[in-house]
């Protein structure tokens, strides 16, 4: 898939664990793990907004398009 999810990179930079992000965003750890692997079918704007708010980053920091 040409969309690369860099959630693990951002999490490492912010030193936040997936479990903590899950609690703050209100998305299960399983779903965030699947997102981290880039295996989700779609991501809601509300979820993206919540992740960006917690990690204090831009959507482009998490999602990247690669040819």
């Amino acid at each position: 898939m040409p969309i690369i999810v860099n959630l693990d990179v951002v999490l490492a930079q912010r030193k936040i664990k997936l479990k903590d992000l899950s609690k703050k965003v209100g998305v299960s750890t399983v779903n965030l793990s699947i997102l981290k692997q880039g295996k989700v079918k779609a991501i809601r704007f509300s979820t993206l907004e919540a992740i960006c708010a917690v990690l204090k980053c831009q959507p482009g920091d998490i999602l990247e398009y690669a040819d």
Partner: protein
Amino acid sequence: MKTIKHLFVIVFIISGSVILTNSKVSDSVFIMLALFIIILFITNLFLRKNLTYKYYFMSKYNFLTSKYKSKQAYDISKKLMFEKVIEVIKHSNFVLTDIKKDTSEILAISPMSLISWGENLYIRFESTEDKTMMYFCSTSFFLMYSWGKNEGNYKKLLNNIEDSLTI
């Protein structure tokens, strides 16, 4: 095999009905038969709640249950998929009944209704080269024909999994 089973069931029901209505069978035989059915029903009711007895319900020789088997491949790891399906079942109207983490097996029961005693849903996962295979089996609990309910459970579970992949 399925056709033979269907024929056997039809012959069994017709011959049983003819014998019972035409012959002068004593009341005790009727009582014995009713007791046998009740005991079998109660036994199944207890056995259905445990994964240990899955082969009893899933066996092709158990003509008292109808089965529907299918499989689906996912490109998500086995461990994640196992947890994902548990989460999906918890958020659906299926009842999560038993889990075996070591063998990645799940047993769920569809809800009882006026037309159904609920079906048993046996789900297990296996890792292949780069995919995870989900093996699904829906069996009726005390019904020779599921009237499409087993297939319906499979479609419902697949839809729920697909929906849950939008986060």
